[in-house]
């Protein structure tokens, strides 16, 4: 036990202050009078800001490929699966006629355009393999504490639903 700990900003007050929440009068008075605590607050802020700047420099430097091609090819497929480049001019009238249903299609995304998790190609075999993997991993992790899956509530989801349904392709 270190008795000086309680004389400086208590944990909850420090956390509240750093989070931008209000702190109590006693903590505020201490903070305004204690150089050590002010220095700690400043150091915490500067350190976090350093990670902010450095991590952003890294992520901004990562090259990214254009995704436009990937999305435009999907849209073209939806317009007409069999349409070739040469048929575009001829199809203008067809496109005009289909404009309204297409607009409706875009406004109300189907299961395909909705951000569905599992691809339709996922085979039953893959699902069964995944289920086996999940069960094996569940067994393995059952003795560990606070796995990321538990924290994301996935264990609850898995417990609520039969695993086959959980993993069924949409």
């Amino acid at each position, binding site marked *: 036990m270190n008795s000086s700990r309680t004389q400086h900003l208590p944990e909850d007050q420090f956390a509240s202050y750093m989070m931008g929440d209000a702190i109590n009068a006693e903590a505020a008075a201490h903070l305004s009078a204690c150089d050590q605590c002010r220095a700690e607050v400043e150091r915490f802020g500067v350190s976090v800001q350093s*990670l902010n700047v*450095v991590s952003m420099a890294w992520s901004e430097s990562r090259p990214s490929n254009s*995704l436009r091609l990937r999305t435009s090819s999907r849209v073209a497929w939806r317009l007409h699966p069999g349409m070739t480049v040469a048929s575009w001019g001829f199809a203008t009238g067809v496109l005009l006629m289909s404009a309204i249903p297409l607009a409706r299609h875009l*406004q109300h995304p189907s299961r395909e*355009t909705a951000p569905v998790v599992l691809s339709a190609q996922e085979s039953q075999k893959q699902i069964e393999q995944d289920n086996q993997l999940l069960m094996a991993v569940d067994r393995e992790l059952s003795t560990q504490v606070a796995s990321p*899956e538990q924290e994301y509530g996935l264990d609850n989801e898995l417990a609520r639903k039969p695993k086959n349904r959980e993993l069924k392709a949409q």
Partner: protein
Amino acid sequence: MQTTIDASMIPLSCRVSIISELDDIDALVGLYRGRVLRYVMLSVGDQDLAETITQDCFLKAYNGRASFRGDCSVSTWLFTIANNLIRDHLRTKKFQFWRKAKATAIDATEMASFLPNGETSPEARILASERAEQVKVAMEKLSVNQRRMFILRFLEEMDLAEIAQATGMPVNTVKTHLHRAVTSIRKELGGTR
């Protein structure tokens, strides 16, 4: 109460009309990729996985843009999708995820090497990378929830309500995780005691 990922990657509260910002996927990527990638990277700790999840995030956002209602910011919406993708990845690949995450983690010194040369002196770069590494190491000791909420609050500067929306957790739970995260990082940084 957790939202289920299969129901929708997009919260109901985020649905309405398309806004023009979402109509050009490359523009969307240009605006938000850095932040989303950084968030996923610091959350999952694996570069390759972070790139994959980030790309999926933008494809899902673009394909589901008709569902975006504009009652939360685009970035909050993107973080929501990213969170769901991370969860999805944990669900389907959790064993590999568990093991691999730490293996290809990037350290702050490497990150700092990407700071623009003209704007940063070598001394400032070293200092920034040391401080950043301390926080990053401290963050690695946090739970997944504490870590992602810490990133959203302190790096993304989102408020508690936005974090609650992006993570699908109640505001009070967010607050609790954040308090623990700050306390833990304070200790790791070597505070007043």
